[in-house]
């Protein structure tokens, strides 16, 4: 069965016959398969019991890495969070702390 991951189907060693016509991609959001979490030099930590679920942290994330379901945020998507720290600065309740490293 073909892999779910785009990089198992098209990658930097693919022969020319397997490159999609005109470099078109026929599915959505394949970037999810690329891990940008590796880039982090600082990491946000969600302190759930301080969080009032005000959600002010969610729209400021450039990396769509604060998932919200039914009006509530959950933990960070560490596969993709780049650790910019904007969320920690906007949190009115000190519910996000930044620590050094991945």
């Amino acid at each position, binding site marked *: 069965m073909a892999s779910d991951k785009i990089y198992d189907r098209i990658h930097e060693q*693919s022969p*020319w016959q397997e490159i999609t016509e*005109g*470099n*078109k*991609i*026929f*599915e*959505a959001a394949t970037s999810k398969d690329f891990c940008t979490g590796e880039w982090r030099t600082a990491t946000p930590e969600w302190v759930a019991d301080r969080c009032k679920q005000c959600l002010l942290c969610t729209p400021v994330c450039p990396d769509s890495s604060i998932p919200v379901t039914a009006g509530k945020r959950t933990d960070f998507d560490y596969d993709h969070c780049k650790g910019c720290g904007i969320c920690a600065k906007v949190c009115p309740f000190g519910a996000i702390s930044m620590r050094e490293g991945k």
Partner: protein
Amino acid sequence: MAVRERLSGNEAVAYAIKQVNPDVMPAFPITPSTEIPQYVANYIANGEIDTEFIHVESEHSAMSATIGASAAGARAITATSSCGMALMWEELYVAASNRLPIVLALVNRALSGPININADHSDSMGARDSGWIQIYAESNQEVYDNFIQAFPIAEDKRVHLPVMVCQDGFITSHGVENILLVEDDKVKRFVGAYEPEHYLLNETERMALGPYAVSNYYMETKRAQREAMINAREVILETASRFEEMTGRKYGFFEEYQMEDAEYAVVIIGSAAGTCKAAIEEIRATTGKKVGLIKIRVFRPFPEEEIAKALSKVKAVAILDRSEMFAATSGPLGAEVRAAMYQAHSTAEVVNYFYGLGGRDITVSDFKSVYDNLETIARTHVVTGMYEYIGLRSTQSEEV
């Protein structure tokens, strides 16, 4: 029954557009192709077609919008000339590498500067590396026929490349000739409904187009594009044969005129072939000399082996270029035909002429002197005027 009409080349293209009834046509006026969008705008204004016209503010935007429309899933066309196509340059490459089956009606005109509105092939020859299929015409009939054939070629799954249908500015675009039109329903059936598989507005999938591709992908992408151009060869011939079944008119990569026994051949593109044919008839009738002509119809993909084969028995060949490429040697057709002959180990003598730049006339007597020169060269094996001009004023007797 085919309809006999008297139409200019521009009218013939516009009429074909009306019969095909494409979805979207963005276009910008430029002499001598302006009439094409004008006629189309009139068809639209009178409810004769349901094509949407986009009144773009430049040719760059014309090709950009055509690309957008084609990617979205529409059958999209445009028309232009000369500097208009030069302004599209970047987008020509994008259209081809995105593998979009766009059809462009190109009315060939000299590029600036100086500004000049008359025919030569500097516009399309400059775009010869852009990845477009290029089909040229001698007459209005051929323009019309080529334009109709362009759609099934471009849209074939083995190809998916844009097609440039070229005709000579004013000479065919504005010259009125008798022409046989194919009935509407036959054209519609020949071209078929446009049913792309992948497109932006496809309700059952999401498509992303136009990525940044790093060097690990770029070369493979170009190789895949080359494959489409290779495939285009058979598709062009298949389409021509279907067209012949429908109309009785025969097309190939090029036309061989009086080539069966020819010893001296001219290779040319476009409307000047008609003048050359008149010269051939006169020479053969008055002197019996075996002169012939190869008139290139398909320049991209380039029919290298076929041309070499067609020239395999001649003693001398004159390749006539209607554009400069400033290599300080040959013109584009000269270079490619010569390369084809070299590959086939031809021993024929070859000269390359420049003619008709910026609309300069070429006459029957010009062709007669070309054939005279070929005869001399074949006899003496001394090639004079390797890169010669036709109709050029000069203080020196011979160009180098």
